[in-house]
């Protein structure tokens, strides 16, 4: 769920870039959007690898149950 939230934020950014590049002659915004898409994909891949490792350790991926570092 947290991962989806991050994706939403990057998507909002991409939408802004694309929308404003409509009024631009040299499509810089679209290029930026492409780079951001690649960044987001990389982020998700790494996050999922970390998540699988967390699951191996704690047998759960619910962030509310991972309380090892509290108090």
């Amino acid at each position: 769920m947290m991962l989806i939230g991050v994706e939403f934020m990057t998507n909002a950014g991409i939408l802004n870039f694309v929308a404003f590049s409509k009024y631009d002659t040299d499509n810089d915004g679209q290029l930026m959007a492409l780079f951001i898409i690649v960044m987001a994909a990389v982020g998700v891949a790494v996050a999922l690898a970390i998540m699988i490792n967390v699951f191996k350790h704690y047998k759960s991926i619910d962030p509310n149950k991972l309380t090892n570092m509290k108090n």
Partner: protein
Amino acid sequence: MIIFYMFCFLTVVSAIFTVITQQLVQAMFMFFLTLFCLAGLYVFALADFVALSHILVYIGGVLVLMVFGFMLSDKTVLNAIPQVINPSDKKQRVVITLLSILFFILMLTLWRSVDISSITWLNYAVNEESHSIKNIGIALMSEYLIPFELTSILLLMALLGVAYLSRKESTDA
């Protein structure tokens, strides 16, 4: 124009639903809808190349990767769907079959009735008025060459890092 507002509305509604729903599977499907509507909005912004790569990378890559990750890690998260559909129920089976046939007919009529030569953005993209894809290609190979190469190196780093991260435990143990 009304399609544009419909896309906007669907995007916002499915995004809100994704955030407020408690079940991960529903959130996934709604996120899928949001991504598709976003791709539609990109088409309206005359960014067809970005729209296509968005569909390829996000829906084909990121979303499938997410579902895989959840399946590989915690299956109990995915099991939280309420069991509404009961395959042995005759009435339900009839209703589902009728619904799918109706949907198929709808798709067929849409496919037959659509006139490809009258779609504005497609004409715009094919004609010489728009140089967006050409511009992107030239810019990637000239002005943005260094970011482009950096992105490729970043992808390689992510590939190696992810492989290392997910293998490390099994070699230690």
